[in-house]
């Protein structure tokens, strides 16, 4: 006798297996990219499917690292991502705190302006960003790479909401404790949000590292490109060697994938917040 309960259990087990299978299939393209980069070039082009390389080789990584400018691109990417992250977090935290906790003329208009920033498509500003950076002689520089990528109004809003959620008694207790406005911010409110700041910083770093359009425009020389731009733009760096191109792709993705794997909780928290849902 198979009761309804058993059927339900069986169905649940099947559904779970199916979900896991689909999840594995979902990452298969990434797996395939990695595995292809570890095969010798002649194995890569074999007309049948081999899920594991017969000969495991890191030669493509070696030549990607030595025969291209990828080292230079890494430095450019790192400088850009660190710069954008630091400036965005710093200015957004200050602005979010001011809008949330302090009183000053025009506060409401500032809040509306920030919300309006969400609607404006920054992709349409590429021409004028380019003209502006050209006039400032900042093309092919780190600063020129950084500046137009600093538009993250959502970070300000997340900070504002975070500070809104802090009970006002902390501010009052600090006032009773004779703390100056600066010390209230620096000693009381800022340390309270290290958790959220870490999460937001990691996500802004990932977003900036992955950004394509502006770095693609702002770097007109091979030497000033970021990794994600360089690996697609400089064909002769890797020739028609598929495995070597994939090795370069893996190198481009590696820092952000590692960041995600190490800081999964923070990344999901910050991205959920950025969608406008309280995490």
């Amino acid at each position, binding site marked *: 006798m198979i009761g309804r309960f058993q059927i339900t259990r069986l169905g649940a087990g099947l559904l779970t297996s199916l979900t896991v299978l689909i999840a594995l299939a979902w990452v298969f*393209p990434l797996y395939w990219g990695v595995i292809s980069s570890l095969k010798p070039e002649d194995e890569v082009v074999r007309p*049948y499917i081999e899920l594991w390389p017969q000969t495991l080789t890191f030669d493509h990584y070696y030549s990607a690292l030595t025969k291209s400018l990828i080292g230079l691109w890494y430095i450019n990417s790192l400088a850009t991502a660190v710069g954008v992250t630091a400036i965005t977090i710093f200015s957004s935290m200050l602005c979010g705190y001011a*809008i949330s906790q302090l009183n000053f003329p025009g506060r409401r208009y500032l809040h509306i302006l920030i919300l309006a920033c969400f609607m404006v498509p920054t992709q349409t500003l590429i021409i*004028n960003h380019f003209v502006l950076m050209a006039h400032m002689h900042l093309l092919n520089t780190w600063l020129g790479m950084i500046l137009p990528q600093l538009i993250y109004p959502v970070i300000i809003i997340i900070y504002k909401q975070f500070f809104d959620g802090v009970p006002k008694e902390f501010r009052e207790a600090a006032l009773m404790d004779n703390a100056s406005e600066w010390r209230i911010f620096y000693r009381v409110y800022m340390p309270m949000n290290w958790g959220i700041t870490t999460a937001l910083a990691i996500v802004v770093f990932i977003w900036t590292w992955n950004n394509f359009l502006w770095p693609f425009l702002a770097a007109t020389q091979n030497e000033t490109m970021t990794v994600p731009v360089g690996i697609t733009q400089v064909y002769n760096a890797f020739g028609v060697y598929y495995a070597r191109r994939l090795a370069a792709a893996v190198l481009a993705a590696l820092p952000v994938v590692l960041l995600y794997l190490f800081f999964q909780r923070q990344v999901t928290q910050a991205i959920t917040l950025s969608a406008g849902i309280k995490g």
Partner: protein
Amino acid sequence: MIGKAFKSYWFPLLLIVPFLAIYGLIFIYPTISMFVLSFTDAPLIGSGSFVGLSNYARLFHDPRLLVALWNTAYFVILSVIPGAAVALLIALAVQRLSGRLQAAVMALFFLPFIVPVSVVYLIWDWILNYQFGIGMHWLDALGIPRVPVFKTVTWFMPAVAVITIWWTCGFSLLVFLAGLRAIPAEIYEAAALDNASRWTTFRRITWPLLWPVTALVLTIQLILQLKIFDQVYLFSTGGRPNDTIVMVQYIFQMAFVDDHGGRAAAVAVTLFLIVIVVTLVEFQLLRLAGGGQKK
């Protein structure tokens, strides 16, 4: 009196100075100069003279505008609702799981979203490579003739849309999962006591309660995909970019390839306005639809 006001406001003003400086320089100023530029015949770099609306007049006679508009709209249709549907299905499946298994499955679905677009391009370009791609081996196995996917206009947009869904699904999935977790377990327990079937539970409880989140996902995706550039540009290199062009790519070509700063700005203004109008209209529509759900 002024002294006192200064004394109490200098600190908040100091805090917003970095924001004002940054957004003034790279947001407000470029937005204004984009509008100004669109009324001139300037090249990309250099000055031009005022030409009134003639950039717009030329724009509306340019057949490429229609192609770019259509391709953008086509891409939106192919990616927004199907993408949200796929993410919702996965979210419902992942929601059932628990503990480490859920975290692991979630991470697998999320991982592609973390990868840079150029890596997505290189991997899929390889998978769908006409000669050696694993995708083509599968087509062979199924007895379907091979297609040069990114060189065929018919296949280009659907393929890029599917890849985009694969790439960005993790984000929508995360939002849906957060929304599903926000529905209290007691409601499901009450439904179970009321003998509701799975389908009834989904249709009458999950779906209406999840609607605000669904609306959020649709809004975010729609606005994002209207501004599509990266994937389409990358996959069209070596393909037929003139036939698969999208709006931002059109701006890029006009400005950076054809060196028409003024005319490119006119395209940019057009897209700017389209995005804002679509955003506002969609916002209203979803609010109305959401209101209807509640009744």
